[in-house]
């Protein structure tokens, strides 16, 4: 059992409140997933910059030392914001590969959990409210956020096993369920050049969508393809730089409730997750259909539901 929450804002005026809106949703899902929690937050991009989220052992990470060492090595201006065991590193877009190589060589103790123009990704072991507090999630702003509370069944309770999983720039995926063909698919995707860091089934689903999108498919089309290639139980919520997608397997054992108003699209494993959202009493509330792709995209300052 796991819990999923997601919030995709349509009304820019709510962006400053994104963290305050999603933390109670995450905390409500402690009942479905008390052993670890994680969240991806998409903040407005800084022109010409990328954000790397790193995970280490120290709490807090030494931001000053990391910033100085990276700036020196990359010969570029670098900003580092430590949040508990994680750090968000902001650096020039062109420095990504150099930064990855430097991290692998000089700081193998730091894991790159996600990167992109907008996405920051935080995950830790512990009760969801405690995880949210240690990262200061309530104070974060942005356009969309996707969170997960985990009750582990298939692999160990570790930070690496916590969701979301990110396998491409600004891409993240959370999963309630279990896949049955992930080993074969992981081998196939490795042959296609993808790298995997865990034995976790969800990482394979994330990698699969990354691979499909690298072939030119949009998120909705990639999710549609997943229906034929992924076998098992799943409710997925997926984020991209500008998109928000939902997919349930054809059997649809894993719960899902959605709500939409003029201000947001929201997802919860149960309706309880959504009750703290503004205007929920008047929202359109529905259960997403099995084997049906739901997909929203932000274009400029407008959000549109798209057909897959």
């Amino acid at each position, binding site marked *: 059992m796991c819990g999923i929450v997601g919030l995709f804002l349509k009304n820019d005026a709510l962006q400053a409140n994104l963290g305050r809106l999603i933390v109670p949703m995450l905390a409500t899902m402690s009942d479905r997933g008390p052993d670890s929690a994680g969240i991806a937050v998409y903040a407005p991009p800084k022109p010409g910059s990328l954000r790397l989220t790193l995970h280490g052992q120290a709490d807090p990470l030494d931001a000053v030392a990391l910033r100085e060492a990276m700036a020196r090595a990359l010969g570029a201006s670098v900003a580092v914001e430590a949040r508990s065991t994680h750090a968000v590193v902001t650096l020039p877009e062109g420095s990504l590969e150099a930064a990855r190589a430097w991290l692998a060589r000089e700081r193998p103790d730091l894991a790159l959990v996600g990167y992109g123009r907008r996405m920051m990704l935080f995950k830790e072991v512990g009760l969801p409210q405690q995880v949210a507090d240690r990262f200061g999630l309530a104070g974060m702003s942005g356009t969309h956020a996707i969170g997960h509370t985990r009750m582990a069944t298939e692999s160990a309770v570790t930070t690496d096993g916590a969701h979301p999983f990110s396998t491409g720039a600004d891409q993240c995926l959370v999963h309630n369920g279990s896949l049955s063909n992930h080993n074969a698919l992981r081998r196939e995707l490795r042959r296609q050049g993808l790298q995997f860091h865990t034995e976790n089934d969800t990482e394979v689903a994330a990698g699969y969508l990354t691979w499909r999108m690298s072939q030119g498919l949009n998120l909705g089309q990639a999710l549609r393809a997943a229906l034929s290639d992924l076998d098992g139980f799943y409710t997925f919520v997926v984020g991209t730089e500008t998109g928000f997608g939902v997919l349930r397997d054809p059997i*649809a054992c894993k719960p899902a409730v959605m709500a939409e108003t003029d201000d947001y699209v929201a997802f919860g494993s149960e*309706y309880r997750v*959504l009750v703290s959202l503004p205007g929920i009493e008047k929202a359109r*509330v529905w*259960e997403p259909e099995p084997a049906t792709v739901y997909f929203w995209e932000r274009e400029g300052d407008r959000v549109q539901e798209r057909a897959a």
Partner: protein
Amino acid sequence: MSDFDLSQASLRELNQALHKLTAESNDLMWRVLNPQGRHAIAAGVDAPVSIEIEGNVGYYCAGMNQQATIVVNGNAGVGVAENMMSGLVHVKGDASQSAGATAHGGLLRIDGNASARCGISMKGVDIVVGGSVGHMSAFMAQAGNLVVLGDAGEALGDSLYEARLFVRGTVKSLGADCTEKPMRDEHKSQLADLLARAGLDGEVDPGEFRRYGSARTLYHFHVDNLDAY
């Protein structure tokens, strides 16, 4: 009329108060405010009481109901009225999966849609759905009636026993051992009674429905299957 506000008092207090009610209790009209999707609201009630719930409810609302009339002015989560024995449960919105699961008696009316597995293993309940039902509805349904004014999803009535299924719209596919049966006058009059009990008297024509039931080839012993034992 008693108002019970779930933002002021706990769900356990509500259910304990409801469990104490008998036919002789003074107040048999209850209203529940701010349900906020909580699970097991008004589960296990056994008294001729009327309960209105003002908002969306979570899992197993009105589960095991006996005698009570429970109205949900909103949507219901998984397993509404599961294992109901008698009484009436009326969901004004949509219901999630497994609505009326294993229920033995009473009437479950859903004005909106019910998702997958509506009436799974039903054992005598009558279920009337104003909208459509999802896949695997009436799976292993043993007795009672499932009436669907809209459409039915895949594998309707899979491994069906003796429950009767009436669908007004399309059926995406029939499950194993479920078959269409002729809609004779006796079935039309049974259906008219059911619709009347659900408060839909005269709103739809029983002649617009098709009837489905068990082909009775799965659950009777067949000598060709001897090798399986």
